[in-house]
């Protein structure tokens, strides 16, 4: 089967895409696959977003109005899983597919067939995950962190499907990241050294290594769960000599690098956008690369800061506190570099720039609350409250998601050949910006005042700010329909984009035509004169 397709494709190499549905099913073209990933991610974003709105609607007022607690727990669990594995990660893989070959002057990804597989696994994985909602006993209800024994001995029967879905997602990400590494290391245009690569490529290279290192550990931990549930082992059952805390250690050994998997490519996106609209070279390219690498390294040795209340010896608590605080240094370097890039620039504020600047500010807020969470004695008060919810939503929504939107606006003209509607884009930005802050900023205070997370109902003193937060969530949620409209409008037509699109943009992707032809860089490009620093 695959041999047939291979030969067919070889014949076809320098022509346009096939027609019809099979184009998308069989495609090995990095641009097609990138598009598939991005649309898939957006649909998951909407599904996960609807779940978030169910949560926020229930929390609009004290009392149980819409859903029962069992279903509420399924919503929080599925919202987390879908957003992390279905929305953010595939979106970045989609961006990598579209952009990495264009940025390094490669004709395609190194392993196009595998690229096709790694995408097409995802719809099956998520169909399986979503189908659990209709099963007897309901969907997984133990939180996206699925701590044992709630997720083993006390789990609904659908947990087995959850485990297989996670396996499939893991296989998909691993294949995707192997592809990225092999592409970046082998297919760069002649003369492009590692330290010449755009930062987006750098951050993705490092992210891919993180994925290769930790997704198998996630696969390991769910396999242990599977064995505990069905084969009578006792990895996480104290009665059989196991330890529920071991689950948390293994999970967070995966989980913390996972957090950076979701933010490092965002750093790359923002590092591409800010220089363009400041019309000034990125400040401190080298230190950006080193900072990214040190963040990635540190991510492996700080996992237990998610578990300060689990009861560790004081030496353990202190070590994880100090190591975690250390992450603030390279992260700070990144933020300072972006600010220095803006400083003395000649800025304009098109939609991508607005999202990028909002990213820097709001991600920094999330980073600072993260620093507060690292302080163990204070963390005893913050842990598992809405303060944590506010923290990680600040780094994930106006962090990762804003960067993805910034990227979409920034590269859409290159992808489609049309300019998006700037007025609508700015409207979308301001609605999202206001929505995000109204949603998540009050959650800091709800958390400090003592409201734990994953609560379907709450005491009366938390009522006012929960209501504000819910209003914000609906503003944010519905403004994403505007985003959908803008993207569709841009795909359908609009002002034609020039090849360079943005007057300050640098990089190989801006040297090719808009829209980008189906096959680019079939012969490696000659690199522009290297500007020596």
């Amino acid at each position, binding site marked *: 089967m695959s041999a047939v397709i291979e030969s067919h494709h070889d014949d076809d190499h320098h022509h346009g895409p096939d027609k019809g549905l099979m184009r998308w099913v069989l495609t090995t073209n990095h641009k097609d696959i990138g598009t598939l990933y991005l649309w898939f991610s957006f649909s998951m974003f909407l599904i996960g977003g609807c779940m978030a709105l169910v949560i926020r609607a229930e929390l609009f007022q004290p009392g149980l109005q819409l859903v029962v607690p069992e279903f509420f727990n399924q919503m929080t669990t599925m919202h987390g899983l879908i957003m992390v594995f279905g929305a953010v990660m595939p979106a970045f893989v989609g961006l990598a597919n579209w952009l990495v070959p264009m940025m390094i002057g490669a004709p395609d990804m*190194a*392993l196009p067939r595998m690229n096709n597989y790694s995408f097409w696994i995802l719809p099956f994985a998520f169909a399986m995950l979503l189908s659990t909602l209709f099963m007897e006993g309901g969907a997984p209800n133990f939180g996206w962190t699925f701590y044992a024994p709630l997720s083993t001995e006390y789990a609904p029967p659908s947990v087995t499907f959850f485990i297989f879905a996670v396996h499939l997602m893991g296989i998909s990400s*691993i294949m995707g990241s*192997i592809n990225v*590494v*092999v592409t970046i*290391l*082998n297919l760069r245009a002649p003369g492009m050294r590692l330290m010449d690569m755009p930062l987006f490529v750098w951050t993705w290279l490092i992210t891919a290594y993180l994925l*290769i*290192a*930790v*997704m*198998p*550990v*996630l*696969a*390991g*931990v769910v396999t*242990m769960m599977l064995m505990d549930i069905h084969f*009578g082992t*006792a*990895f996480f*059952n*104290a*009665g*059989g*000599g196991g*330890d529920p*805390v*071991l689950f948390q*250690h*293994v999970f967070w*050994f*995966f989980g913390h690098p996972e957090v950076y998997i979701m933010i490092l490519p965002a750093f790359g996106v923002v590092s591409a956008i800010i220089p363009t609209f400041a019309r000034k070279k990125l400040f401190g390219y080298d230190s950006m690369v080193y900072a990214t690498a040190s963040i990635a390294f540190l991510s492996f040795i700080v996992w237990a800061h998610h578990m300060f209340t689990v*009861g*560790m*010896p*004081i*030496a*353990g608590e202190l070590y994880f506190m100090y190591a975690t605080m250390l992450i603030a240094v390279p992260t700070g370097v990144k933020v300072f570099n972006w600010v220095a890039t803006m400083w003395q620039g000649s800025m304009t504020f098109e939609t991508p720039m607005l999202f990028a600047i909002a990213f820097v500010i709001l991600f920094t807020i999330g980073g600072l609350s993260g620093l507060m969470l690292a302080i163990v004695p204070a963390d005893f008060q913050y842990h598992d409250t809405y303060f944590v919810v506010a923290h990680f939503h600040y780094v994930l929504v106006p962090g990762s998601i804003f960067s993805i939107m910034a990227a979409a606006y920034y590269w859409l003209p290159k992808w489609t050949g049309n300019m998006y509607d700037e007025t609508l884009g700015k409207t979308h930005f301001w609605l999202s910006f206001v929505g995000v802050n109204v949603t998540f900023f009050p959650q800091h205070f709800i958390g400090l005042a003592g409201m734990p997370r994953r609560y379907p109902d709450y005491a009366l003193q938390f009522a006012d700010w929960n209501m504000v937060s819910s209003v914000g969530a609906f503003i944010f949620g519905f403004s994403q329909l505007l985003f959908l409209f803008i993207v569709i409008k841009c795909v359908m037509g609009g002002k034609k984009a020039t090849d360079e699109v943005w007057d300050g943009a640098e990089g190989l992707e801006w040297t090719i035509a808009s829209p980008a032809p189906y096959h680019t860089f079939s012969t490696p490009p000659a690199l522009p004169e290297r500007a020596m620093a």
Partner: protein
Amino acid sequence: MAADQNIQSKMTLKLLGVVVGMFVFGFALVPLYEVYCQVTGANGKTAGPYTASATLEVDKDRWVTVQFLANNNANMPWEFRPTVRTMKVQPGQAYSTVFFASNPSRQTMMAQAIPSVAPFHAAEYFHKTECFCFEQQELARGERIEMPLKFIIDPHLPASVETLTLSYTLFDITQVADSTVTEPPVS
């Protein structure tokens, strides 16, 4: 071009090797964690049967309170309790006590007691020379048993520890150990 292909497939294979390695590493974390707990006493785990490498010197000037807790895990109907709640002991000296258990259910059941020590950093200084937790307990319906525990507190126990709590949680492992249990008598 062919050489490039070769390099690429080699690299792909290497990366797949890393993937397999990390999957194995995930499982290797289980024994690694076990070792880590033994060394640091993290999570209050106590070690297996203690055999004195050298005779411990009794610290005549120091008294430590040892407190015993006994609990059943969910769905465990046995009666399970320490016969004494606290003991004043001297580090280095061997002591013994007895826990009581009875099975009020209608069938023969297997149980496993899981020890845990608070504060954690005291766990590695709590040496058990004999303990019912080293083996599984089987009780027929209505059967009662007194289960011995012999222990020595290490004289190196940090001076800050004045009270040491040893908790046992009794887990029902009848279903897990089903193959080894004789059929319960039908009433």
